[in-house]
């Protein structure tokens, strides 16, 4: 079958690869309907996540039709239309039982790598390097989904493929951020990054009753999407002084909750950008934390900063003084999608969550390399490139 693969740093290929087979009783094989690029893939593309091998199939945000079921699967039948969470959770370990699904003890068959990096391993993720389990990704005609009773969810009839697709990763990630940061009614919430993840975090913060939600980015078309489709306010960080504007918008206090949805390749207009970029390229720091620093600086005393953007290893010039002296709560997480997908699909069926505007460019798998180029460089207003393996 045809698949979009990682061939090397900044090199994407389209190759013929073998079709997946059922290996465990709880597996399904899914015929992929739609599979989308995610900001996390850009970190793989740029070589910032070290455990990729040439030939690895990319893609972790997807939906499709069940093509085959393992003999232990009880919830799915051939022909069902489902969306699958990008993280792999067993549903039986203590973390899954406590709804911290991305921390699953059993979803990553290569735990040694992340244990070495972080002290403990977390769950696995499709198409996201050998450190996260070595699972083949979804930019292909078929994908094997382990623990399918836990990770695959039937899509309600009224919800289109283009909308349901983002219940796989972007929406539950946004939900994880706003919910785990404990946004409360009346809060001022600031979100760095107006990609799919930032937009969804803003939407969840609004649904949780935040009084003001402000999304920060520099791309006009993305900020325009935030205003039109999400209904939040926006700031362009190239035009204004972000912490100053946020102070004014929050009665001088600073936002109660700051959500960082940018990650390890943050851009910055200031001189620190060059410093961070050089250090990152020389591998002295693995991650570039510009937006995270700003979020910590802007946050009100006693507030919460949540890192949704992916960081892999080490950051430099971390404002620990502000974290400690302002009594901040600093949290982060990979998405706990299994916990949020049912709610998201329900809201999608009632038009309270809309995501199809994120799918700015839909194309066949053959155009994978071009899709990633457009997504990476934000060409032609690309917010997400979506692949349709069926052509």
């Amino acid at each position, binding site marked *: 079958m045809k698949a979009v693969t990682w*061939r090397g740093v900044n090199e994407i290929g389209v190759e013929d690869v073998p079709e997946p087979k059922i290996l465990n009783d709880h597996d399904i094989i899914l015929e992929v309907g739609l599979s989308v690029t995610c900001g996390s893939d850009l970190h793989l593309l740029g070589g910032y996540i070290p455990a990729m091998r040439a030939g690895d199939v990319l893609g972790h945000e997807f939906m499709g039709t069940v093509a085959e079921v393992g003999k232990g699967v009880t919830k799915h039948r051939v022909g069902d239309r489902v969306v699958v969470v990008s993280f792999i959770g067993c549903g039986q370990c203590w973390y899954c039982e406590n709804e911290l699904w991305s921390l699953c003890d059993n979803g990553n068959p290569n735990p040694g790598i992340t244990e070495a990096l972080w002290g*403990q391993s977390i769950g*696995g993720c499709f198409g996201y390097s050998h450190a996260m389990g070595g699972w083949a990704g979804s930019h292909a005609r078929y994908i094997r989904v382990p623990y399918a009773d836990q990770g695959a969810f039937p899509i309600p009839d009224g919800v289109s493929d283009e909308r349901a697709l983002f219940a796989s990763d972007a929406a539950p990630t946004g939900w994880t951020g706003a919910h785990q940061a404990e946004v409360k009614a009346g809060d001022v919430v600031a979100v760095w990054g107006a990609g799919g993840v930032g937009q969804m975090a803003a939407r969840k913060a609004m649904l949780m009753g935040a009084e003001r939600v402000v999304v920060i980015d520099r791309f006009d078309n993305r900020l325009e999407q935030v205003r039109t489709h999400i209904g939040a306010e926006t700031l362009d960080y190239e035009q204004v002084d972000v912490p100053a504007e946020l102070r004014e918008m929050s009665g001088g206090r600073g936002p109660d909750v700051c959500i960082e949805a940018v990650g390890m390749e943050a851009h910055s207009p200031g001189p620190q950008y060059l410093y961070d970029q050089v250090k990152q390229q020389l591998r002295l720091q693995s991650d570039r934390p510009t937006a995270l620093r700003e979020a910590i600086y802007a946050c009100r005393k006693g507030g919460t900063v949540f890192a949704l953007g992916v960081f892999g290893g080490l950051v430099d010039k971390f404002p620990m003084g502000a974290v400690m002296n302002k009594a901040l709560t600093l949290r982060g997480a990979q998405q706990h999608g299994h916990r949020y997908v049912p709610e998201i699909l329900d809201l999608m069926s009632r038009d309270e969550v809309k995501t199809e505007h994120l799918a700015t460019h839909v194309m066949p798998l053959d155009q994978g390399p071009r899709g990633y180029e457009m997504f990476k460089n934000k060409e032609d207003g690309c917010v997400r490139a979506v692949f349709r393996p069926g052509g």
Partner: protein
Amino acid sequence: MTSALGTVASLAARAGGSVVRQVLSVLEHGSGAGAVSAPASGWLVVSINREPTEIDATSLPAPLAAYGDRIQTRIRPAADGKGTELAVRLTQRSGNASGPARLLGSDPQGDLRSALRKAKQLIEVGEVLAVDPAPHGRRSATPAGAALEAVAKRAPKGGVL
């Protein structure tokens, strides 16, 4: 600018890809005596999300049962609903495998770590999750690719558990 870059570059040479090095070093020496990852006692322990009454020391899952009396076992409840702690250690611990021994495939502590992880999965989920064969495209024969393959191969046995 050039000199600043020069300084950073020489620092980089000294630090030498610290993240990758950290991973390799824990995978290499993870179970070595005195390493960050190995308690002096030699016990390896996992918490299993099951009541202590559901775990029978006399009929442990196959990967551990295969050890027979070559391992000691300790089972005790974890506080606060965190399940049951299952600890195992080799009865005869003749020091830990050296780097070269491990390259030749002899790593008793790593094998036991892998068996313990499998036993936990069998008790919790009823099956050991397999990832290979996973579909993939052409593997290019680069030194980095080969190094990563070696790391991934050892990853089920490696780590700090």
